[in-house]
């Protein structure tokens, strides 16, 4: 873990391993998710990898009817829109994420809803890709489907 560069490529590799990783400044303690190679608080480049809890709350969201081609290829369109948004992690940083498990009516979704991480794997072999997603925390024991 220690040898990986604090880069988007490493971040993506960790996501594929189902780890949400950031960089933490050894001087001032600031945490960055996705990782930064330099601390933008104290400008030092002395950082270490830190796994974050994957818990947070919904800071903002949208429900998209006209998406980019890779989302259209997944079957999303005007009749089947998808959610994306921003989750503020318990550790402080915000992340841009796909949102799963939300109600179908965006009007009923509340900013501030507690969320938990979910790793979405799409494709096979060389085209396998992992997307960072979050879903609402189950407040009651989940019922068997």
């Amino acid at each position, binding site marked *: 873990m220690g040898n990986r560069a604090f880069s988007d490529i490493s971040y993506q590799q960790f996501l594929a391993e189902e780890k949400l990783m950031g960089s933490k400044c050894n001087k001032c303690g600031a945490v960055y998710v996705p990782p930064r190679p330099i601390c933008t608080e104290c400008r030092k480049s002395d950082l270490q990898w830190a796994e974050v809890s994957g818990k947070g709350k919904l800071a903002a969201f949208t429900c998209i009817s006209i*998406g980019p081609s890779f989302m259209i290829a997944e079957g999303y369109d005007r009749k089947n829109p998808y959610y994306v948004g921003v989750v503020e992690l318990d550790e402080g940083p915000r992340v*841009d994420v796909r949102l799963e498990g939300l109600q179908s009516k965006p009007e009923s979704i509340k900013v501030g809803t507690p969320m938990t991480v979910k790793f979405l794997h799409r494709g096979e072999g060389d085209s396998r890709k992992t997307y960072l997603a979050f879903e609402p925390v189950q407040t009651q024991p989940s019922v068997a489907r």
Partner: protein
Amino acid sequence: MKNRRKLGRGVAVVGAGMSKFGMYKDKDSKDLFFEAFQELVASVDKGLDPNDIDALYVGNFSNDFFMHQSHWGPILSDLIGVTPIPATRTEGACASSALAFREGVFAIASGFYDMVLVGGVEEMSKCSTEQVAEGLALAAVPYENQVGFTFPGVFGTIATAYFAKYGASHENLMDITIKSHNNAPLNPKAQFPYTIRDMMNAKIEKAKAKGEPIPQWQTEKDFLRDPRANPPVAWPMHLYDCCPISDGASCMLLVAEEIAKNFTDDPLYVAGIGQGSGRGLHSAPTLTSFEATKRAAEEAYGMSGLTPKDIQFAEVHDCFSMAELLHIEDLGFFKAGEGYKAVSEGLTRLDGPKPINTSGGLKCKGHPVGATGVSQLIEVWNQLRNKAGKRQVPIKNLRIGAAHNLGGTGGTSTFTILERR
């Protein structure tokens, strides 16, 4: 004192021209830029000899992606017959031509050039809506693109954060849409010169003619609340919250202040000019403000010695209704969290105390992205020179106007204040 910087010497605007914005099957980027340039030449009161132009800066965002053609500087210098002068393309997403304007200002202020042509061009309508959405999203932050954000999605996301923080709602954004559409029919260059009421009536007439059920809208908001008339694009951004797909071009002629009167008795002067950069949704200081705009505003106010109160009217980058709301707060016209009230009270209407987007804004005038920044300054040029026709701001002694241009998720922002002396 970082934000009190002054220009090395004064810079004046002495000519301007733009194409009508729209969707053109039979016109390309060169045709549109030529249209703008011809209007510019005609606008220079005492005449222009194109041989006197020292350099060209032209903004273009995405013709590479949309039209498979890059390198627009020399294409356009060739078109208007001014080769071999230097011709440089600037790119700052939807703020590309404001950057061209800024580079032109600096080139003259430095003393290196005396006369610079600046402008922008974009050709988008020959692509599908999906292709345009994907092409524009290239200007978002990579982490946003990777999870499927589009620009309507970015501003929809910002809207939910703003609503939750300040208690505003989509109804307030409708007031922005209605206001912009009220200004648009007064602008002969606008892509959509129609009021919301015009469009309601047209749809009602169409339904009657076809013998279909007649929509029961009474007010403009009834129409905007109806998802059949105003479907969601990226909730809560609906169709009428979003600017259209457009083709168009714009240009302006900048000269050193000391020679301005050789070209016109009524030049405008660059009073303040600022630019900033920003970080995207995941890392911005807040989700309800753009740090790039705040920086650009600080720089422009600092240079000019003016305050937000002194700006008599402004064009702001309303790519989405939500964007206009953020900008009028970030530029200091209204306090954070109070812009939505100002909008709904009518303070930003053409006849209000702080008219915003008298041109109809990006929403109605159109948004050929690389042409937008300079086209906003052309509205300021027309208003300050009392040539805005039916949409002339009814404020006496109009002297100070400004334009704000934004690129990406607040990645690039500019604010330019023009003054008539």
